[in-house]
């Protein structure tokens, strides 16, 4: 974190990406850092409303001053063009001062589709992968493996 390394946790659903990212975030908080765990939806909501809602502006200011930011499930759903630009600007603003941990189940090739812009997707990856460890998690979903049923035999 002190060297501002990023981390990309990739893999299918249920392989423990979110758990691992949340654990890293918790350890960072315990170590005295300002670390935040936010879903992509929360980040987009903050970016969309920060200019109109005071609490979201406070949240935005909190995030840009963070030591570590976990972005959970990024690129899970498509982004509007203006939001893709806002998201890129946000990452561009923080990547030199914040360690970014990303969890995703989409390959980089699919990021362009979600952002509807290859140039933004490439530029975003460029920022994230500059100083980055990529961890690819494999295996079956722990949720499906431990699927619970109503009807116990």
């Amino acid at each position: 974190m002190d060297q501002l390394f990023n981390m990309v946790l990739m893999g299918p659903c249920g392989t423990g990406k979110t758990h691992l990212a949340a654990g890293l975030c918790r350890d960072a908080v315990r170590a005295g850092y300002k670390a935040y765990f936010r879903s992509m939806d929360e980040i987009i909501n903050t970016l969309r409303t920060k200019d109109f809602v005071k609490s979201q502006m406070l949240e935005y200011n909190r995030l840009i001053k963070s030591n570590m930011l976990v972005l959970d499930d990024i690129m899970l759903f498509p982004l509007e063009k203006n939001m893709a630009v806002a998201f890129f600007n946000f990452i561009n603003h923080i990547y030199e001062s914040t360690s970014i941990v990303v969890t995703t189940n989409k390959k980089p090739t699919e990021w362009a589709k979600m952002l509807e812009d290859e140039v933004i997707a490439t530029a975003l990856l460029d920022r994230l992968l500059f100083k980055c460890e990529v961890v690819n998690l494999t295996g079956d979903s722990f949720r499906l493996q431990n699927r619970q049923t109503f009807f116990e035999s």
Partner: protein
Amino acid sequence: MEIQKQEIRQLCSKFMLTGMGANLEDTVNDAEKNGIGFMQFTLQLLKSEVEHRQRKDEVKRMKSAGLPRSSDLAIYDAEKKWAKNRKTLAAEGAQLDGSVIQYGINGSLRNR
């Protein structure tokens, strides 16, 4: 003695030294029992305030971190198969638009 302690607690509260005020009883008892000097006593009081503030700060940061319920790495199944493949990812990234990466538009020090 009790009146003095009460007054100290009030002053601690006034100066927002809540940790010191809360630990006053224990620190005074410890000092009386072990016969420690003024220097050591003052140090213990200040340390208790620092520890209290650090705990409070951690609780505050933990709350604003917005962590999900399962966030303890102690219960994380580390036996999962990991594969570090930065090269693979970079290769996939290059597939996005070969020309964009090949010509080095991003990260080609344009901003510098």
